[in-house]
């Protein structure tokens, strides 16, 4: 009778893994023949191992592939896996028509097309400034896939935290917030985002007051067709609670200039984007204004 110890277990596993030489295997089998308790113990391990080997692969739901395609389509805003039967002709016609109209106006008025998109003049409005103990910027990727941490191997795509990626949230299209605009960037919004991408990032310390002068910063205004309640819920989900607040019936998302582009991109599909310039005492800070249906950007008199 043998007490099964660690050495025996190692030989069990080596035998089952086929890692023993012919000689070792024969010796082990002979020992099993001689020792009933060892044989019983080995049978127990072999049963477990065989059950593991034979564990049938559970099949995923048949729509997993289409689910992946759908997520990529949504997160790439239609650049990949777009519906193959989507009518492209009308969109192309609209772009052409738009270009003709702009060109025509420019010819008639003698104004260069670029002038037609000049930003509005700065509007002096009072905005609540950022609290000094504001939470650090959200490190998550705009498309919800966390980037690898600095110490990760190049090939290791390791999400940066245990937090669930925001993309695991329900698709806003099917969210309780109701019908949203199509996942298509408005042309003006895309142009602004392209311009922003080529703008050098600021190195100004965040939250540091500018002595003696107010700065003019750029805010982003997105007019959505949502109710305030739905918009607030959606915004908190996408941008996080610490970034989101409500001011006079408008949802405001605060962001650092260095990460404003991904922030804007998170909301760009909700409606037309405008850019406004506002005075501010804190550099390196920008705001995204998400306007519910029927609400406009605050005027000077508000």
């Amino acid at each position, binding site marked *: 009778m043998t007490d099964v110890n660690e050495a025996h277990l190692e030989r069990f596993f080596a035998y089952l893994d086929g890692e023993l030489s012919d000689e070792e295997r024969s010796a082990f089998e002979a020992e099993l023949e001689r020792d009933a308790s060892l044989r*019983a113990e080995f*049978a127990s391990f072999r049963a477990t191992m065989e059950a593991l080997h034979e*564990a049938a692969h559970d099949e995923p*739901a048949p729509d997993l592939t289409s689910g992946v395609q759908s997520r990529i389509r949504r997160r790439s805003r239609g650049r990949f896996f777009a519906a193959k039967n989507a009518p492209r002709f009308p969109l192309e016609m609209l772009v052409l028509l738009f270009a003709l109209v702009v060109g025509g106006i420019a010819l008639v008025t003698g104004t260069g097309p670029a002038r037609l998109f000049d930003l509005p003049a700065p509007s002096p409005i009072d905005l609540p400034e950022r609290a000094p103990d504001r939470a650090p910027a959200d490190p998550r990727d705009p498309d919800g*896939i966390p980037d690898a941490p600095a110490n990760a191997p190049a*090939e290791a795509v390791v999400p940066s935290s245990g937090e669930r990626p925001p993309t695991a949230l329900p698709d806003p299209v099917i969210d309780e917030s109701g019908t949203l605009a199509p996942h298509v960037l408005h042309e003006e919004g895309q142009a602004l985002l392209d311009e922003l991408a080529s703008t050098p990032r600021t190195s100004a310390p965040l939250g540091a007051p500018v002595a003696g002068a107010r700065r003019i910063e750029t805010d982003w205004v997105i007019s959505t067709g949502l109710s305030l309640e739905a918009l607030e819920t959606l915004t908190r989900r996408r941008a996080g609670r610490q970034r989101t607040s409500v001011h006079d019936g408008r949802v405001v998302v605060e962001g650092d200039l260095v990460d404003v582009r991904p922030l804007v991109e998170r909301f760009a599909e909700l409606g037309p984007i405008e850019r406004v310039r506002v005075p501010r005492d804190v550099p390196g800070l920008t705001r995204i204004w998400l306007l519910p249906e029927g609400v406009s950007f605050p005027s000077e008199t508000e």
Partner: protein
Amino acid sequence: MDPLDDDPEFLARLRRRDEAAFTELVRAWQGRVFGLTFRMLGDRGEAEDLSQDVFVTVFKAIDTFRGDSRLGTWILRIATNHCHNRLKYLARRHHKRKKDIDDVHEAILDHPLGQVPLGPERALEGAQAGALVHAGLQQLDEDHRVVIILRDIEQLSYQEIADILDVAEGTVKSRLFRARTSLRDRIARRYEP
């Protein structure tokens, strides 16, 4: 691993974001990715959701794949990392729900074979072997669970597992030893007469 692993042209198509190639990749790997996530998380819905995220990450990060390892190893590495983070999330946010799942696993182990004085080798011969193993796996530590899934179910080599988990091969072997012993003990305890 998969024959697609060694096809440079296929990899080039993936890097070009060729949609047909990517769809082919998903179809080829969805079973193994889902199998890993399902056994790691113990919940079908979570596993399907996470599997989709894994492939989105593959799609997004394919440019960072240098070919130092096999493509399949890289995919499973992403899946393993996603599982780790999702488990942390679930442990933090859904502690009660996790407890409920654990209770279900206990119930599976207790019923119905546990009422019969069968030896584990007999119990595991039946149709419930898959359920018993699945339930037993859920009770292992995460480190032990992943290594036993990769080795004994996915049948990867020690080196591949070491690459996926970013640990030494010796660590894989020692974890596997403890994992197998622990799993066998958990199942065997149910059948002691």
